[in-house]
């Protein structure tokens, strides 16, 4: 008796197994697979662009998160099995990916009036979605004196406590040189030399045992909130989000901010290129692109957006005049070229 029941149960399991293998085929609804940096950025993009687009088009949007770099994209394209339809990139990754044929050329007609975009916001394979900045932040309730310059980040005598840094040579190296006295305008000239890399690493070595490394953009607000660090490198929008939504007593130091464009690109071999193009057209449109700033303090790359944008966010934007006094634009060409070599030295230094 029992054996029969077991056998029929096994048969049911088997049937279920086959049904499941066929499951993906059964899902008929069109899906746009997007990979982005997650966290507060994705939450804002979801409200500003993903949801309205999905509703208007009657499609589903599935997101995945990553922490930058083109290795995974490369692996997909090389295996001829591209899973992502749309990718959110930093500039140097966008340049590298385009160079290596990992992104499809973008049809300029999608973008409408191209003169409305600020200089450098359109690449052959990608279009800028927003402008963001790497800054450092601290918890005002826990700091006796307020840090004001990027040199303060490295001053562990005056400002004791741990430091949070992104586990990447980008921006860490620039800050190390700026804190070591290199003017913003000459940072990349110095960093291009072997001695410059050594100088930056030596400066980082002075605080190495205090550094807590993070990889994902949502980690720094968490590190600040639970007191794991006294100051941390962060993406400005994430700190804004923590202040606004959670009333966290965080403050941003804008001195030495390193700003960059963020990009949309369509991977080579994307399964639904048409839908991805439709999305780019939608999210880059004059009437939609600025809507991101309703939810997070990232600036729009279209000139016309200045009028449309919510004025209350302006002082928190990386581009606000007060914040922009000692700003450095990331040299994406530099990083596209040198990332691999500097990163391997950085990772070796890190592992020692």
């Amino acid at each position, binding site marked *: 008796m*029992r*054996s*029969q029941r*077991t*056998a029929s149960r*096994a048969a049911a*399991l*088997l049937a*279920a*197994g086959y049904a*499941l*293998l066929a*499951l*993906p085929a059964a*899902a008929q609804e069109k*899906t746009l*697979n*997007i*990979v982005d*940096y*997650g*966290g*507060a950025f*994705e*939450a804002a993009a979801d409200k500003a662009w993903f949801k309205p687009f999905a509703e208007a088009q009657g499609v589903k949007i*599935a*997101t*995945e*998160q990553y*922490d930058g770099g083109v290795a995974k994209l490369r*692996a*997909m394209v090389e*295996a*001829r*099995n591209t*899973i992502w339809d749309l990718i959110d990139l930093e500039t140097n990754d966008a340049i590298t990916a385009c160079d290596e044929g990992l992104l499809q050329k973008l049809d300029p007609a999608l973008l409408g009036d191209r003169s409305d975009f600020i200089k450098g916001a359109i690449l052959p394979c990608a279009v800028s979605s927003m402008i963001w900045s790497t800054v450092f932040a601290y918890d005002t309730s826990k700091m006796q004196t307020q840090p004001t310059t990027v040199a303060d980040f490295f001053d562990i005598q005056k400002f004791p406590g741990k430091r949070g840094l992104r586990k990447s040579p980008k921006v860490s190296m620039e800050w190390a040189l700026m804190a070591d006295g290199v003017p913003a305008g000459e940072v990349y000239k110095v960093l291009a030399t072997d001695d410059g890399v050594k100088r930056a690493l030596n400066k980082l070595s002075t605080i190495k045992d205090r550094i807590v490394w993070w*990889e*994902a*953009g*949502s*980690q720094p*607000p*968490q590190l600040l*909130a*639970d007191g794991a660090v006294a100051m941390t490198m962060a993406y400005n929008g994430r700190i804004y989000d923590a202040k606004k*939504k*959670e009333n966290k007593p965080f403050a941003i130091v804008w001195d030495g901010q390193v700003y960059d464009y963020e990009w949309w690109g369509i991977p080579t071999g994307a399964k639904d290129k048409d839908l991805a193009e439709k999305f780019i057209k939608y999210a880059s449109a004059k009437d939609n692109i600025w809507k991101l700033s309703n939810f997070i303090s990232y600036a729009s790359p279209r000139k016309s957006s200045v009028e449309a944008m919510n004025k209350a966010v302006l002082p928190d934007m990386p581009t606000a005049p007060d914040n922009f006094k000692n700003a450095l634009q990331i040299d994406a060409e530099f990083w596209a070229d040198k990332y691999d070599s500097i990163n391997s030295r950085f990772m070796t230094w890190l592992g020692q």
Partner: protein
Amino acid sequence: MQSTTHTERLGRTVLRLFSAAVLVFLVAPVLIVIPLSFNESAYFSYPMSGFSTQWYAALVSSKDWRLAIVNSFVIGIASTAIATMLGTAAAMGISRPSFPFRSFIMPLLISPMIIPIVVVAVSLYLVFSPLGLTSSYAGVILAHAALGTPFVVITVTATLMSFNRNLVRAAASLGAPPLLTFRRVTLPLIAPGVATGAVFAFATSFDEVIVILFIGGPEQKTIPRQMWSGIRDQINPSILAMAALLTVFAIAMFLIIDWLHGRAASASNNNN
């Protein structure tokens, strides 16, 4: 003599205190998750700022979490079914004294349990990706099935080793065909072992995150994958709510295994 019993008693007390401390170390972090999941703050901060069930509400209303829960069960059940069938059959061969090349085949069969999981994940990506098996349910199910098989092999082999082969011979000598013998005699006797192995295989799949991270796509989010991104990519206390639910689930698993063991014990009472 008296001093001996005195030292013995002292030793026993120290042992009890020490063990109590270790057991608290084991269980406290698992239980602490439950109150923390009712924290009001959006960060994992302590002391708690207030009582709220919002993270449970967030869990229920998020389509990603709903997908992850469904996926975890779908992938877990399908891979367990495969692992259990293949593993049970293999165990029936291995437990026979005539099984050849044992010292060569055993390491192969239990290798999914001991090969570092990152190596497995990277290898599967390398081979599955050109075949279109990455970002597919089929790929994830096959991978999880492979990871689950050693547990089934080990538990069923252990049950078979302690079971009286004469019963099978008796059934055969009475003219029962092998399949009938299997269904009527072998299976009921080893069922608790098979079930234990299946529970282990299911738990392996249910808790697996690294293979999913490498070969799963946006559609194959599972609970562990979602928790990983919850703690890394989008800090979100929903994962504490999920963690609390999983702890309750683990306690349920304990009770199930316990019940199965009880049955196993009564089934093979003459052997113990």
